[in-house]
Structure formats: C-alpha cells, structure tokens
C-alpha cells in the first residue's frame, strides 16, 4: 500500500501546480483545473483497482471528486480559490483515509475551517456573519468530540456523533445550514457538499461506540427527516429545496449507519447518503431543468422505501 502521506500530498502539489500555471486566459485555467481533476480521479480508480484503497474509501473519494468536478469558478473569482479547492480536497482525503480517530477529527476541523474561509470570500457582511457562526459551531463540536474520545462515559456518544451528523446536514445539528447556503454560489455549495458529506460519513462509520439508546436515535432521525420534508415543501428557492431534500435522506441514512450493528447495512446506508449527495449535486447542476426533480423525488422515495423495509 502506498504511503498515505503521498496521497495526502498529491492534491496539495496539484494545487500548487495549478496556481503556478500562467493564466493564458480565464478559460485555460479552468481547463487546466479539469485536467488535474481527471488526473486525480484516475489516481483514485487506479489505486482502487490495484487494491491499495478499500471499497469504502474509494466510494467516498469518488463521490467527493465527481461532485467537485462540476465546480467552475467564475471570472471574478479570487485567484486563491482554485488552489484552495485542491487544498480542501487533500485535507478531506487525508481525513477519510487516516486510521487515527483523533487525527480524523483534527483534519475534519481543518477542512471545515478552510471551507468556511473560502465561503466567507463569496459574500458581503451577511455571509461573513454566517461563516463566523458556523466556524464557532464546528470548533465547539469538533473539539468537544476530540476531547470526548478518551472519556470513559456512555453519554459522550451523543457528543461523538455530532461532527458526523453536522457534516451530513442532519437537520437538528445543522442550524447554520439555512444562513450559510442562502444566496450561495453554486460552485461553493458543491464544494461544501462534496467535502463535508464524505468526511461526515467516514466519521459516522468509524464511531467506536454502539448507540446506547436506539429508540431516541430513531425518534430524532425520523423527526428530523419529517422536519426537513416540511421545510422542503414550504421553501420557494430551488437551491434551498435541493438542500432540504438532501436533509430528508441524510437523516434517515444516519439512523441506519448508527443504529445498525451490521457492517453491510452501514456501508449500504453510507452508499445511500452518497447517492443522495450526487442527486443533490445533479439538482444544482441542472437547476434550470425542472424535470430533473422527478428523478430526485424518485430517488428519495426509493431511499425511504429501502429504509422502511430494512435490508
């Protein structure tokens, strides 16, 4: 197996190269970015076929890369952002691949901190305020989980799951989502979703403790899903609706991952969450094509069906 450091360094070096490419014109830079993305995709597939990466890791990285692949920066985007997107990819990859729980949390924190830094660049005072609140929220839950890993108490389970739930936009743990995603450019939304959701799933799959109170978890997840469905119905903005639709599915996936003792069911739930992510990304790419909603609704209904008749 190749050293993890090499995989972690690869996107950072790619970011450096992209930032050093002379901008012949604005489209050339975008094309170069695409070339690097394809190269990164090829590296993941190659390592997956070779057996160096596990199936879970491959799935998470591929979902992340495919969603990010659609990101196109606008002409007036600061030149710092394209390399930053690669830095984010590198940190998220390192977080997904690392075997150490503490390191995973630190990398997840770094990832979200840089992500919010990028997000804060995209708006005025209002966006700055939203990212500030989100940053403090993530600092609190991530570091609380970091310090809770070693504590010998059962109640720390509810702290441990928070970083994962917040990253997959579990409604009760994502109070920042509305303010952060409103009026957010599509590329930044995709950047956030592609980075945070795989890292969140990776963390949920690695929680070291079983759920101490399954009934409570079930009530929370179904209640959250129902709450997100209501928000989905009353929301008028199409982008916000895509996010709320994702929330309805991610809450149920979280229930399956945390509540099931079977590894296969957990992996299946993780896959469902990634499908929901790809589905949301598709919605955001094709936001001007209303018929795509049928596909979304179908996929959401299928997810719910599978959850009711548990595999």
């Amino acid at each position, binding site marked *: 197996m190749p050293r993890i450091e090499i995989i972690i360094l690869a996107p950072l070096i790619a970011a450096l190269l992209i930032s050093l490419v002379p901008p012949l014109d604005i489209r050339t830079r975008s094309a170069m970015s695409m070339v690097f993305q394809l190269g990164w995709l090829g590296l993941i597939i190659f390592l997956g076929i070779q057996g160096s990466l596990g199936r879970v890791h491959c799935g998470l990285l591929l979902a992340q890369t495919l969603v990010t692949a659609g990101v196109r920066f606008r002409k007036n985007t600061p030149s710092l952002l394209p390399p930053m997107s690669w830095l984010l990819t590198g940190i998220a990859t390192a977080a997904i691949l690392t075997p150490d729980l503490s390191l995973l949390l630190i990398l997840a924190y770094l990832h979200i901190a840089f992500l919010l830094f990028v997000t*804060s660049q995209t708006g005025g005072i209002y966006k700055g305020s939203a990212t500030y609140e989100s940053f403090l929220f993530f600092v609190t839950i991530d*570091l609380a989980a970091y310090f809770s890993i070693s504590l010998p108490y059962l109640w720390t389970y509810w702290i441990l799951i928070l970083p994962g739930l917040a990253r997959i936009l579990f409604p009760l743990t994502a109070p920042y989502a509305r303010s952060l995603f409103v009026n957010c450019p599509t590329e930044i939304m995709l950047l956030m979703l592609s980075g945070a959701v795989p890292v969140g799933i990776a963390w949920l799959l690695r929680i070291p403790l079983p759920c101490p109170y399954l009934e409570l978890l079930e009530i929370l997840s179904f209640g959250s899903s129902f709450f997100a469905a209501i928000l989905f119905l009353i929301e008028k903005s199409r982008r916000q609706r895509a996010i709320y639709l994702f929330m309805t599915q991610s809450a149920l996936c979280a229930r399956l991952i945390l509540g099931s003792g079977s590894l296969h069911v957990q992996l299946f739930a993780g896959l469902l969450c990634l499908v929901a992510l790809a589905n949301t990304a598709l919605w955001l790419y094709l936001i001007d094509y209303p018929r795509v909603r049928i596909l979304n609704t179908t996929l959401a209904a299928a997810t719910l069906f599978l959850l009711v008749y548990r595999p």
Partner: protein
Amino acid sequence: MMVPVSILFACALLCLILETLGTSLGERKTGNRYYIVLVALTGILAAAYHLPTQLIFGVCTLLTLMSLILAVSQMHHADLELGDAYALILVVYALLLLLCTAHNLVDFAVITAFLNLIFIGLAYFRRSRRLVAEIAIKLLFSALFYFCFLSVAIILALQSTGSTDWAILLTHPEAQLAISFVWIAALLWIGSVPFLGVHVDYLDAAPSFASVLFLGSILISGGVLISTLTAHPLDPKLFQVLVFFAGASLLVPPILGLDQRRIGRMIAYLVMTQAGVLLLLALFQIPVLPIFYLHLAIALPGTIAGIRFWKHSQNSDKSWEDYAGAGRKHPFVGFAWLFILASFGGVPPTLGFWLYGQLANKALQTGAPWVLLLILLAIIASMIPIARLGVFMFSKPVRHDLVLLHQPRQAFLVITCALFIFVAKIVCLAIPNVHEFQNFVSRLPGLNL
C-alpha cells in the same frame, strides 16, 4: 569572585535607577551614554558569572533575538536614544539568567523587584506621555504590592524556619503560611486572575518591544518560580484554589476581551490567557514548560508585529472596523497573524493546541477529566474574538488604502513567527519525549553552553 560581581551588579542597579529617573524626567544628557555602557557591561559580566546550562538560556536567547529584531524595526518610530533601550534589554536578560539560578527567596525578591523597575523604565520609551505615565504608576504600585507580599513571606519564613532557601521552605511543615504568600506574589507576578489589570494595561499601551520583553519575562521567570513551588506535593486545598485561579485566568481574559473595541486591548487580554496555561502546566507537573517558553518566544513578537503592521501613525487605536479588508490586501501576513493568534487560542494545528493536548492527557491520567471541559471552554472563548477578527479582515470589502501602510520588516517577522510555530508543532509531534527535545535544542549551534 562573589564580591566583584556583587559590586558590579550594585553599580548596574544604581546606574539603572539614575537612567530611569533621567529618562522619566525627560532629560537626555550626553553623560547617560557612560551609564548605558556600564550597565550593559555589568549585565554581561553578571550573566557570564552565573551562566546556567539549562534550556532556559536557549529560550531567553531566542527571545532576545526576537526582541532585538522587533526593537530595530521600532526604533525609528520612537523618540529615544538607541542605546538606552538596548542597555535595559541586556540588563533584563542578565537578571533573568540570575533569576533562573536563584536558590532562595531573598534573591528572587530582589531580582524581580529590579526587573519591575526596568520595565517601568522601558515603558517610558513611548511617545504618548500621559498614557505611559499612568501605566508606569500602576506598574509601580503592582511592583510595590509584589515586593510587600514577598517581604512578608521572607519574614514569615525566617520566623518559622530560620532560612529562606527554597529546599528548606518547601519541605518544612511550618513554612506553609510563607509559601502561601509566595504563591500570591507568583500570581501577581504572572498576571493571573485576579491580578490581571496592570499587565493588560501595559500590553495595550505599549505594543512594542517593551511588551514582548515584559510578558515574556514575567511568564518565563514566573514559570521558574511556579515550577519550583510545585516541585513538591501541594496541599489538596491549595491545589484546588490554584486550579480555580488557573481556570479563571484561562476564561476571564477572553471574555473581557470580547467587549473591547480596540484590537490592541483585545489581543492584550487574549495573550494574558497564557498565565492560566502556565499555571495548569505547572500544577499538573507536565514537563513541557520549555516548549511553552519557546511558544511564547515565537508567538509574542509575531503578535505585536501584527499590530504594528496595520498601525497608522495618525490613528494608533485601531478598532474592528479599521481592519475591514486588511486580510484581502495582505493575505499572507493576515493569515500568518491569525495563525499566531489561533496558537494563543489553542486550536489545531498550532503549538498552543499541542500544549493543551499534553495537559489533557495528563489530566486524564490523574483522574481529572473536568480539565478537558476547562480547556474546551478556554479554546472556544479565545476563538470567538479571533474568528471575528478574521471575518473583518477577510470578508468585508476594502475600505482603507492599506497598501500605503505596508511594512516589510513586520511582515517578515509575522510570517516567520507563524512558520516557526508550525514547525515547532511538527518537531514536538516528531519528538514526543520532552527530554529528547531539550537535548535536541541544546545541540543546536549557538545554544550549546
């Protein structure tokens, strides 16, 4: 050998008093130069006599270099004669070295009293006379209180044990009261809660080499004193009280800092949390104090240089709004400065977080998991103003033409300090054993004594 050194030292102190008085009265005589040379020579000789082979010398040397770099970059702004400040800085380091080798309470009391006097002198190397005069008066009262506490402790120690030697005092059962007074003096010396105000005033009004020197000196010398006091097992009740003060020192300054509109004062409060970190590290007897000193030696000049970088000569008191867009104009300096501040806050991946991590490990081993909650609250409380500053620096459109205020020397210092903190964190992770780290540092060229 002892007599000449004592005489030389007495001469130096006499010169220092004359020099300080002369400066405070605004008299700049040519004859002062002789005093300055004498003071500097005396400091060097005194230091050479007492040269210790401890890591502390390496840290002090690093702090000297940083301070001197910063001093050089500041001198052209200040209305002073160049040699004065350098002479005082040299004497401070000579006294610090003596302080590290002090074996009894009397030595400690005398040396720290003179250190206080020098800091009053250094405070006068400022332009804003009224503010400086206020600080000097406060600092003078603080020094008097400090000396009073130590004097009472000396009297009590002599009455109870007949000696002022640390080894006897710390083990003698009847010296508890004297030790309690020493603890109060130690809390006052490092600026812990409830003795926070004077130090914050000093840092706020003197964001220059004097601030770096002042805070670095009180925390490093305070660390020596506190680690001496905690070398023997403490009374459990005293331990609880001290942990309470440590926790308050971690939480109260950043909460007070939230209310500040002026950035300089907010950062002064933020920096003062290090007194709480120092107390906790010493109370739990974690052998990373040298790395804590190293952290201070790197982060303090970087913090102050960051303030100076965006300081306008016509508007010295910058508020939040004045930093709007500052990070967008100078992204690398802005990011490096926030990284240094985040290290004081203690978030990953900084050296400050590594220190908190060591503390958390030790607290878990000793069955005190509530310390983790304290650390978490301290990090969050510190990060609230830092994150807000980051938002103002990077999120708002540029309002001022900050390019004109660009100062390469400060920029170099800020970025270098941020890189040093990052590299130090990696070195600490790579060499988890602190004794190995000490050996590593002692082998460095120029620091091997």
